[in-house]
Every structure is written in structure tokens, then in C-alpha cells.
């Protein structure tokens, strides 16, 4: 099982990534204190992008690569995965 995110900012991507790995960092949702430890990726990451049909990716996602702060989002995802070891 892999969790795939499409959130628009590094901060929100980090919150969602932490929620499905080490538990809800805000401690208010149903996953507060529950460490699922699931592998989590963002749709803008190369690991995910490379598995798409290139034409579909171009039509559905690619424009957002140039709109969002893609590097920051990817950094945030890697930091969470490294921190929790998934």
C-alpha cells in the first residue's frame, strides 16, 4: 500500500505525510498517536511521475509542476520519509 498526495504546498504535504506515517501531528484527527508507517509520495515526485503514461501526466499534472513550489514539496516529502524510515 502506498499513499499518494497531491497537496499544493510543502507545509500541507508534510502534515499529510506525517499523518500517514507517524500519526496526525496536530493531534486532532482520528490518526492522532497512530503510526501507520505507510510509504507516502507526492504526485510531483519523480518516483511517481516516471510510472505515469507521459501523455496523461502532461494533460493532468504537468502544468502544476510549473505553478507549485515543486522543489520544496519534494524536499518536505523526503524529509518525512527519512525521519520516519519509510
Amino acid at each position: 500500500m502506498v499513499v499518494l498526495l497531491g497537496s499544493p504546498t510543502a507545509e500541507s504535504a508534510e502534515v499529510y505525510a506525517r499523518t500517514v506515517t507517524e500519526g496526525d501531528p496536530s493531534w486532532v484527527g482520528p490518526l492522532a498517536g497512530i503510526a501507520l508507517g505507510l510509504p507516502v509520495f507526492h504526485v510531483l515526485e519523480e518516483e511517481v511521475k516516471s510510472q505515469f503514461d507521459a501523455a496523461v501526466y502532461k494533460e493532468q499534472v504537468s502544468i502544476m509542476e510549473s505553478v507549485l513550489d515543486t522543489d520544496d514539496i519534494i524536499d518536505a516529502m523526503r524529509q518525512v520519509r527519512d525521519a520516519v524510515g519509510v
Partner: protein
Amino acid sequence: MSQPVVREIRFFLAHTPGLVRHGSKPTREIHANHSVWQDIRGSLRSFDDAVAYAPHQVMLGNMQPDDLNTAEAPWYENMLAEYSTSGPHGEMVNEDQFHGLLKAADEFDLVLLEEGYATRVAAELRNHPRVTDEEIERIQGVPFSRIEERLSSREGAIPLLTRDGATIGLVQTDYVDDPSLAPDILLENLAVKATATMALRSVLAESGTDPASLQYVIGSGEEAIGDRYNRGGGNLGKAVAEASACVNSTGADVKAFCCAPVHAMVVGGSLVQSGVFPEVAIVGGCSLAKLGMKYRGHLAKEIPVMEDVLAGFAVLMGPDDGTSPVLRLDSVGRHTVGAGSVQQAIVEALVADPLDRLGLKFGDVAKYATEMHNPEITDTAGSGNVPRTNYRLIAALAAQRGEIPTGSESRDKFVEEHGMPGFSPTQGHVASAMPFMAHAMDDLKAGEYQYSMFLAKGSLFLGRMTHMSDGESFIMEANSGAE
């Protein structure tokens, strides 16, 4: 056939820190944990701080949107030295005055104010040019003991508090068995009526329009007015027309989530152009449910809870007068059912298609108005910078079509030139493109540029009836008669 023009637009802002507890999210979380209100209350702004907040001065027309590029950030820590509660685009009242306006808008004894407070509020409003003597008379209070008794003895009433925590009144329902007439819903709807009414009165007064000459008022807000048999049935447009002395007017509401104002502008413009009604007003009241929506992010960062302002607007449209900016009905962009919900498809439908139809390039539109949410409110709570994302999308599409070079440098240049920082309170439909219209009107009349585009998107999926998004757009053009 002549095109419709936009004659006037005005905004009405109310700083309502005491009502933040009645926003949807705070209400739910205070209900679960009463200490949440104390946390929120400790981070609410004073009226002076809210007025001196640079984005609000842009709403009132005392600053230009692009002035925010050079205003020292964060704006909530760098209050302006010079500020005013009124400007060429509207006015801002404090919470006491707004509580008085709620009472003035109330025809069913739904609002009770404590008598000393009511007297003080009535005195504050007495000299306001757009509050009538009849309304001042209506702002009568009751003994505090009656408010205490009503709040403690029966269900169906919620307290009204000021920022300092004092209970100064209540809102009650006259039918406790109807969830559509629950006091929190009645408060929301009265706030909508009060803000839209004040904006419409301002538009009529500033444009020199006799209220009796107006024939149609379209409500474009997100509120749900009606009882349990017709929840959301409306009709705010006509209620606001009545409250604004538009005795020869009728009205109706247009519903389309956040993009309803743009839909309503197109409908209103069409009514004018077809000659059905010579002049039409579009109103949008506030969105009380969104007060404090992102309070948790703000508290976590130890910054003010900035969703403490209600906003309403009113627009007056009429036949071509040779000077007012033209609403190009032949430029309407539509997000169709078949277009899909991919961002690229939405922007193509709303921006590229209208430009193509008029034979224009992306760069021909001097300024694009999109969701103008203040990024200081959203970005600090993890929701991103909404206008910047939208402007980058438009730039990306321009690059894809070869109209600007690809790359972030060219993108950022386009965003800086054709966009602007967000400055609107996060008031749903009110924030959707409309806040820039007043500035665009000034610019188009002054001949600073020829075209401005207004686009709005709506999250239809929130209502669970469809997975679709929505969107609509139009271009405003300088009136050639003004040259």
C-alpha cells in the same frame, strides 16, 4: 446593441471579533472544548489594528493592490501609520456598530441587545449617512436580566459577545423546532442582509441613483435563507432591495458557490443589455461561517486570528453611458460540464477561450482578477497563496501557447505585471475576483489600460451533488466613449 456597463461598486466591511466564535469551525471546536474560545479571544485584533491592516486599506480603496508588494511584511505586525475607516471603495465599521446594524436589519425580534449597549450603539450610528432614523428607533434594548433569563431558561438562543468577552445580547429563533431557523443560521442570514444592504445603499448614494428607480437586485451569496421546507430558497436580493428603499425593485438570487458573483454579473449584464431591466444591482453579503476558519493555524504560529472581518459588496450595472467600463458579454468564459476538473482545462475555459474569441493575447489583459484571498491568512495556515497559484497557472498556459517564454523567470514577471497580491478577507464568494473590480473601474476610467479579466471558480463538490468544479469569467473593457 450597446453593451452593459458597470457604473459603481462598493464594499462594506465589519470588524467582528466577538462573532468569530460563531464561525463554523470555532463553533464546533468551542462546543467540544470551551477553552478554545479563550485561546481565540486572546489573539483577536483591536478595531484599530484591523483598520490599519494594509489589505483592508486596499479593500477600502485607500491603497492599490500592488502597494502590498512594497508594504513591509508581515502586514499584521506592520500596521499602517495612516489609515481610515472609509475610502473611495467602501467603509469599515466596528463590532458595536455592526451589532446595531444586525438589530436594524431584524424585523422579527430575533436580536435582543442589552438596553445600555443598545443606547450607546444607536448613538454611534445616529450620524451615519446611510442608517435611517427609523432604524435608529428600532435599535431598542432590553434589561440584561431578560437576556440572562432567555439564555439560561430555554433552548433556541445564542449569546452575542464583544471582543472583550462581555455578553451584550443574543440571537433567538422564534421556532425552535425548525433547524433551518436555528439561531446560528438566523445570525448568519441577518449578517448577510446587513452587510449587503449597507453596500447597496452606498452604491446607490455614490452613483446618485434614486433607490426607487432600481428595478432588479440579484443576490449572489452563499447563504441559505429559508425554513425547513425550502432551506436555501432565498431570496436575499429582494430583502436587500426592500431594506434599501428600492420600492420599485424586485429580485432573486443566483447560487453557484464562490463563483456566483461572476455568474450574477453575467446574468445582470444580460438583463440590462436585453432591456428587460434598465439597471440591475448585484449584491453579495458576508460569509459569517468562515470567521475563524483557519484559527488553529494562526494560534499555532502565535499570530492574530485574522478571519475576524465580514465583507459584503454591491455593484450597479446599467446601459452604456459612454464613460463607465463595459462588461463584454461576448467574452464570457464558461467551465462546461464536459471540460473536466483538471486545472489546465479550467484555466483554458476561463481564460484562453474568451481571449481567443476577442482576438486577444494573454498579455493584452493588463490585470487578471482571480480569487483574491489574502495570502497572509491562508499561507500561515497551510492553505497556500491562492492568487499566486492562479496567476502562475495563467502564466503557465501563456507559456504553453508560446505567448511568453517558458521558465520561472518569465512566469514570475508575468505574475508580477498581470497579477497582484491577494488582499481580500477569506469571505468565500466575496473574495472571488470582485475585490479588484473597484480598482479596475478606477484604472479603466483613467485610461491606464484597456482590459481586465475577472474569473472565479466554485467548489461544487462540497455539496455532495456532483464531483465537478465550476468557473466563469468575463472581461471588462474601458469605455471607448471615454476617449
